[in-house]
């Protein structure tokens, strides 16, 4: 009894899904394929020339680059973007010592409570404080930015496919609408207040180009020229660190663990071979 029922159920489901296939295939064959500017002109993110120091299983931080990237964040991005999961104490990971971190934290004003009156006020930051947001709340952020809330940057490079490359490409990808696009899609426009960028999924980004001129940030002696590309690569590296401060520690833990496991597996193989040696004359392993 169970088999005839099963056969009927099986034929039923297949019939219904094949009906869906036939109607879907008909629509697909008769309708024009979707043809959009986003689809044709969106570009996949790419690395800066030479890649990042943290690329690959042996990659490690370029501490000087992280410090430059932090400077770019502080002087450019921080005007609109928060970094709420990063605390000043975390800056030890960028090679700063305790005194420098204290001074850095104290240069920020963070929300606090007046110990005498209990009123909300601001006080100098401590190493245990987190980077304060440039806006008191999301409504204020939206109001100041044409209704587009600037996202928090702490996890940005993990929240996008190929995150570090995406940040780098986006920051260097602003420009005029190419002539081929205009030719193929005459109706395509960038609405007022948005900015054309081929690395953004719908090609129109609310953020204005933040890095507009070489030398916008002044790097200390001994650092590379602060070109737009250099600044973009530096801040992309910095945001890789903010998203995954334990990245290098993780890989450095991984190598000895992997070495141990491979060694243990070889021993386990030899043990298995020895245990089975008496059992396997002409054994055919299925």
């Amino acid at each position, binding site marked *: 009894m169970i088999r005839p029922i099963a056969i009927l159920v099986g034929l039923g*489901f297949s019939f219904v*899904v094949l009906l869906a296939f036939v109607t*879907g295939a008909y629509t697909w064959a008769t309708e024009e394929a979707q043809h959009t500017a986003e689809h044709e002109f969106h570009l996949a993110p790419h690395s800066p020339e030479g890649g990042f120091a943290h690329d690959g299983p042996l990659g490690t931080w370029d501490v000087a680059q992280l410090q430059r990237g932090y400077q770019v964040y502080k002087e450019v991005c921080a005007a609109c973007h928060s970094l709420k999961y990063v605390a000043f104490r975390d800056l030890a990971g960028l090679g700063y010592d305790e005194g420098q971190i204290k001074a850095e934290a104290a240069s920020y004003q963070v929300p606090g409570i007046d110990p005498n009156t209990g009123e909300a006020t601001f006080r100098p930051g401590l190493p245990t404080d987190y980077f304060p947001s440039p806006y008191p709340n999301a409504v204020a952020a939206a109001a100041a930015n044409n209704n587009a809330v600037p996202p928090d940057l702490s996890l940005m490079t993990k929240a996008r496919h190929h995150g570090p490359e995406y940040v780098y490409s986006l920051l260097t990808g602003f420009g005029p609408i190419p002539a081929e696009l205009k030719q193929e899609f005459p109706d395509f426009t960038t609405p007022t207040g948005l900015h054309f960028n081929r690395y953004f999924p719908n090609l129109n980004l609310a953020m204005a180009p933040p890095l507009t001129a070489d030398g916008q940030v002044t790097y200390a002696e001994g650092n590379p020229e602060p070109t737009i590309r250099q600044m973009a690569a530096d801040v992309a590296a910095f945001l890789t660190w903010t998203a995954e401060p334990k990245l290098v520690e*993780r890989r450095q833990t*991984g190598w000895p663990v*992997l070495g141990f496991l491979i060694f243990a597996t070889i021993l386990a193989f030899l043990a298995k071979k020895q245990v089975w040696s008496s059992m396997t004359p002409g054994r055919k392993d*299925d």
Partner: protein
Amino acid sequence: MSFPWAKEYTPANPVMKFLDEKLPLPRLVYNAVGAGYPVPRNLNYMWNFGVLAGFFLVLQIVTGVVLAMHYAADATVAFGKVEHIMRDVNWGWLMRYSHANGASFFFIVIYLHIFRGFYYSSYKAPREMVWLLGVVIFLLMMATAFMGYVLPWGQMSFWGAKVITGLFGAIPVVGEPLQVWLLGGFAPDDAALNRFFSLHFLLPFVIAGVVILHIWALHIPGSSNPTGVEVKGESDTVPFHPYYTAKDGFGLGVVLVLFAVMLFFLPNYLGHPDNYIEANPLSTPAHIVPEWYFWPFYAILRAFTFDFILPAKLWGVLAMFAAILMWFFLPWLDRSPVRSGHYRPLFRKFFWFGLIPVMAVLFYCGGAPAEEPYVMLSQIATAYYFLHFLVILPLVSSFEKPEPLPYSITEAVLGSDKKAVLGENTTPAT
């Protein structure tokens, strides 16, 4: 249980003797996974995955209990708590990445374990109960994994929960009240997050309980084997320890090496970047996809796009659940007296050239956006999936001439079996 020639446990010292008399726990372990459990001598590496699944269950429980110490199921702080684990908790990143990738590896080994069962028809008598309990474990795993993915409260957590609970909304009449009742609201929020956390903590222990039943049920007929020929005598078996503890130890090593590669070098490869964006009910992600281990069933859900008497969405939901629930009936659908796919030429063709490529297509299409040609591909694959289990499997044995089976496991291994000639069961193989 098991075979008359199973070695009996003899306590080696007075302490163990005392324990054996008062609470024979060592005896239980000895008979379950020790020298007291005779196992067919010809098991190949596909028989490693039960032990490996057990390992990953334990890993998930251990890492999960530690993570729960640092987590809070509150929609306002849950996302930040996960970041706290990643940044501030000592070795927190190791715990969390082990747990996330451990879930993936648990599913990898379970899928291999299940497909081993399909190929060698491990579900057939006398092991029906082992199979039924196994399907129960798989369903519990899926529920646990789904709820666990909601806990980090990222965009995919929120929207995945919304889509999956939305499936219940497709049920006529009671659907929508049921969905609201399950979520504790109209959309996933604190109520849903808290109950998912509670159940996510509970269900692994339920799984552990059903695993004990699964192993218990297995030990009554004993393990199956690649020939599908039942054990005939002592020469067909070896004690589980040391033979299979050694073999499983090597298998575990290989899987742990792969696990370490993912964990330390590609920990987010199997995840979705959108889950590093905090849940936002006002912003729908471009493509909502579940975790990779749900992709085949998600593809089946989305393959039904045509309203035939019932709404397409309801067809999709019914098909998705049927796609797994029908596994419960396999022991009675497949009527071939031969177990192993090795000796079933026609079945074997359907398995390698039908089921396996179709599963690959469903895996791929479930993770792809709901666009052509992926929808058409998953429709063809879904049609075959149902035909394979519900039509081909019940009928194929009528048209199939099985290849000759070996007399015994010993003959399959050694090329000859003395007792096949002498008609006795006493000669152990050397």
